[in-house]
Structures are given as C-alpha cells and as structure tokens.
C-alpha cells in the first residue's frame, strides 16, 4: 500500500475495487478502520468493538484473493447496528434489559453480509430499541455527532436516531458503511444529520429475522454509507427472500449497482405540496428548491402532487408503532434472556414488573404504556383500528400520486442536527422530527436520504427520494443524480 493513501477516506466501492486490483490488502483496510474505531471512542458510536472479527474476515479475503475466490464484499469491513443479533457477540438494542445477552445465532442480514466477505468492526450504539430520533435514549450514553456548528461553540450535536451510532461511525470514517434499521425514519434522518447516504428499501425486501423487533409492520433494515453507489452495493447483499421472516418478499434482487444511472430523462418527479409545513426553516425550503433544480437538470419532469393525509401520519405512527412495540416487547420477562430483577420474596408477577421497570428506559416504558392503552379493551377501536384506517388512506395518497409521478422529492428532516438535550425533555417535539420520513414508512415504500448541502451553521442537510414499491432502482438513480450535482464533499473537522 502507498503510505500516502488514507484507507479510511475511501468509499466501499473504492475499497472493494482497490483490494481486487491489489492496491492494498484487506488486512491493511481492516487495521486502518480498527485504529479509527479506537481513536473515535470519544464519539461513543460503538458499544462493542470487534477488531478480531474484522481481521479474521480480512485474512480470509486476502487468502480468497490469492486463490481467485473473490466475494461481493471481500475486503470491506462494516459497522453493525446493535439491533442485529450477532452470534457470539453481545447484542443489547442499547437497553439494560438485554444486559448480558449473547445471541447464539446471526440475523439473516449479518449472516448474508459476513457470507459475502464483509468483516465486522463492532456493534453500533442506537436509541434504546430504536425508539428515538437523537440517540439519547440509549442506556449506554449519547453518541456525539462528529459535526459541530461553525459558530465557534462546541455544542454537542445529535447524530440523529435511531441509527445514530451508524451515522456517526460512517461520517467520522470509523466504518466505510454500516447497517441501519428504519421504522419511521431511523436510517434517513441520521443520514441527513451527518452528511451521508442511507436507504430504507421496500418493506419486506430485507429480512427481519434476528433483528430485534420494535414495530414489525414498519421495521426495515437498510444500509448507510458515504455514497449512493455504496448503498446499492450493500443493499444487494442485504436484500432477498428469507423463509424465516413471514413478511419477507419473494422477489429477485436486482443488480442495483450495475444498473445505476443518473439520467432521469422520462422520469416524473412529484413535489408534494403538503410537505411545505408551517415553520419550516428557509434553508430547508431553499435546499428543496435546489434539489428540484438538480432533478430537472438531470432530465426529470417536475410535477406538483398532493398527499392530503400527510398531517395525520405522525399521530397514526404514534399509535401503531407503540401498539406493536408493547406486544413485541412483552417477551422481555426476565425468564429467557437478559436482565432478571428478583426482589426478596417476590413472586413471578413481581419479578416481571421489577425486571421491566429496571431494564427498560423511560422512552421505552412510555411507548409500551401508550401501546398497552391503545390496545386495551374499550379503546382498541377508537385508537388502533382508527389508526389502521388512516394508515390505509395515507397509503392510498401515495398510490394516487403514482398516477402522476414516478418518484417523490422532499427534504429528509425539518431541520439540521439539533444539540443534545435540546428536545429530549419534550417527547412530542422529538416526534415531529420524523414528519417527512414517517408517511413513506407507513406506506412501506423505498426511500433514501442523500446529502444536499450545508446550512448557515455549516451542518449537513439531506434530501429524501421516495419511490414506488420495489423501485429501489429509481430511488437510487435519482439519489445519484442529486449526489453528482450537489457535489457534497465536506467532512466533519476532526476534533476527537
């Protein structure tokens, strides 16, 4: 390897191709990232470091290269969100209730990534059970964004959430790419906050097997990386039918990377008028307009569309997601895995209640209780069934829009990254962060965030592209067209 090359600055496609071309070994790459993980400890992005896993995969890749047996991700180390079960490595969902849990099996996604030659650098911090938009609900401390405002202050900023460890690690170049999960925006909003790309595929594309459940009708895994191409590369390995997931889609995985094209001629891109929300900062509005201009420059036709039920999406989400969470999280009972709190003289019911009181964080308890309430006798129809009906209307809005356009373009989030502590006292203010990402989650649509530029304080802003079911290619292509025109190359100044 040339001593001038900083391997941690390279994209996944560069690392893969450079490794294949013999410019450097997989071991050199793994060692460079392992070192970056250690020096990045002040960001608290990793809950567990697994340098040996990364090195073992690298040595295997080097041996495979020598014998001409290259795999799709040979030579690429990754960060894994700690919501994915990893055999032999602690998995906590950033919750005290999974204290001591070491899975005996791998999630389908990690198993596919490792089978494709990728190594694991470590397990990444997140909002507890993926419930949050700032990573502040983790039981293991906040993740710090590598970004800081250019006002000379040193306010610690949120890396977004729930995939905040993933976004911080990629933005700080501690990992070239990472897995994320997205229930209402948990891949896209952190990607936007940290100036990276991330895609949530169509619901059912990526197996949920071995991914710790939050809200099963919404949970989707996806990749986060520096570029659109890197997202396409990772998604090709992550996606695919899995008989172990009852909602897995039995669909072939297209060659997304090979088919990537920034040419949007013949594409109609819809601009939903309801996304011009009250109080949206002028900078977000301006970025959105830039995105529209870039899409037009790439050959797309711009059309205004209406998604009339948009404003009902957040309250719908905050009934459905807690309802599903209260059911999914019933499994944490102190009997089969994780924490057990058995007060002196306690019976079984006392043990359940003490274990859950002790093990769950405040936001998780709040959502379990909301979910329990909306599912309880007498309230089920008024809350839960009603929300499912409104969800149908939100999905119908999108179906009607697809009559007029092929893709939708919106901002990813209503603001740039906020400071840690700024919104954590007010759950509703925090929930509003997901205003642009939740509707497409409720409709199960593929959607991605790509960096569009910086705000006046020097912080990244993201643009979101939403596509028809299974049209990840269209989403990625539009993402690439914007990426090429935005020319976003700014990186966080290293202070850690």
């Amino acid at each position, binding site marked *: 390897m040339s001593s001038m090359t900083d391997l941690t600055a390279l994209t996944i496609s560069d690392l893969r191709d450079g490794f294949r071309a013999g410019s450097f070994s997989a071991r050199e790459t793994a060692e460079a990232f392992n070192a970056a993980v250690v020096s990045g400890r002040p960001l608290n992005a990793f809950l567990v470091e697994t340098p040996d896993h990364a090195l073992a995969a690298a040595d295997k890749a080097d041996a495979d290269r020598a014998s001409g047996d290259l795999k799709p991700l040979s030579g690429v180390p990754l960060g894994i969100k700690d919501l994915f079960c990893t055999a032999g490595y602690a998995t906590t969902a950033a919750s005290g209730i999974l204290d001591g849990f070491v899975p005996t099996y791998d999630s389908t996604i990690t198993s596919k990534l490792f089978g494709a030659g990728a190594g694991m650098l470590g397990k990444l911090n997140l909002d507890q059970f993926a419930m949050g938009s700032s990573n502040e609900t983790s039981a293991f401390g906040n993740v710090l964004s590598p970004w800081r405002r250019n006002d000379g202050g040193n306010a610690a900023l949120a890396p977004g959430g729930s995939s905040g460890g993933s976004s911080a690690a990629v933005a700080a170049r501690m990992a070239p790419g990472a897995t994320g999960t997205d229930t209402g925006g948990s891949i896209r909003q952190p990607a936007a906050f940290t100036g990276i790309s991330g895609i949530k595929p169509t619901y059912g594309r990526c197996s949920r097997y071995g991914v710790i459940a939050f809200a099963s009708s919404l949970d989707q895994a996806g990749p986060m990386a520096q570029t659109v191409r890197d997202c396409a590369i990772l998604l090709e390995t992550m996606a695919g039918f899995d008989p172990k997931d009852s909602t897995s889609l039995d669909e072939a995985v297209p060659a997304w990377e090979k088919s990537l094209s920034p040419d949007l001629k013949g594409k109609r891109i819809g601009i939903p008028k309801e996304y011009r929300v009250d109080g949206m900062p002028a900078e977000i509005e301006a970025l959105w307009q830039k995105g529209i201009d870039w899409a037009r420059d790439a050959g797309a036709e711009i059309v205004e569309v209406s998604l009339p039920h948009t404003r009902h999406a957040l309250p719908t989400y905050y009934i459905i997601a807690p309802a599903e969470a209260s059911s999914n999280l019933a499994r944490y009972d102190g009997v089969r895995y994780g924490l057990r709190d058995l007060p002196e003289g306690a019976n079984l019911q006392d*043990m359940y209640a003490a274990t859950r009181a002790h093990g769950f964080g405040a936001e998780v308890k709040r959502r379990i209780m*909301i979910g329990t*309430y909306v599912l309880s006798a007498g309230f089920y129809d008024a809350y839960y069934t009603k929300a499912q009906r409104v969800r*149908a209307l939100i*999905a119908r809005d999108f179906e009607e829009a697809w009559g007029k356009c092929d893709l939708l373009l919106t901002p990813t989030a209503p603001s740039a990254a906020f400071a840690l502590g700024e919104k954590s006292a007010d759950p509703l203010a925090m929930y509003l962060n997901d205003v642009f990402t939740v509707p497409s989650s409720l409709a199960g649509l593929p959607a991605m965030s790509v960096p569009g530029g910086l705000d006046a304080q020097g912080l990244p802003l993201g643009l979101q592209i939403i596509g028809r079911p299974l049209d990840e290619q269209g989403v990625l292509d539009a993402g690439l067209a914007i990426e090429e025109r935005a020319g976003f190359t700014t990186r966080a100044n290293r202070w850690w």
Partner: protein
Amino acid sequence: MSVDAITVRKIASLARIAVTDAEVEALVPELNNILDWVEQLGGVDTTGVEPMASVIPNRQRLRDDVVTDGGIRDKVLANAPQAEHGFFAVPKVIE
C-alpha cells in the same frame, strides 16, 4: 379521553412494569399530552376504509409441517438468567 393516576397504574400493571408514585405523577401529563395529540385522528373521515394490517401486498406462505430445527436445548437456555435441569427456572408459582 384522558388518563388519571388510577388508569396509569392499571396500564402499568397490564404492561407488567412496576411504577413508583413519583413515576405515576410524571406519567399522567406525559401520556395525556401524547393521547391528546393522537386524538386528532378522530376527525379524519374513514367511512368505508378497511383497516390496513399489511402494507405491501404479500401472500401468506405455508410450508410443510415438519421440524426444521430443534435439538438445540442448550442454545435455547444459554442466555437464561437461571436454568436448571434443562428448564428455565422461575420463582415458585404454586404455593
């Protein structure tokens, strides 16, 4: 609809989460804020709209009713806080 302290205790009990008096006091306004906010859905006309349970059209798959794994008792018990004689162990249920 709004919740009071008695309702919050009932919800906590249904959810099997122990709560202190101070937590109940804090949860009453917190839950009411969220419930007041989600109640705006009551104003949406959903006449004739079927509740959506499955977001992407997908068929229910059936497979042969055969054992596809098993024989992994030790793995199943590996993470138990307390396992004895090949079983999960819990406090005495029947006196």
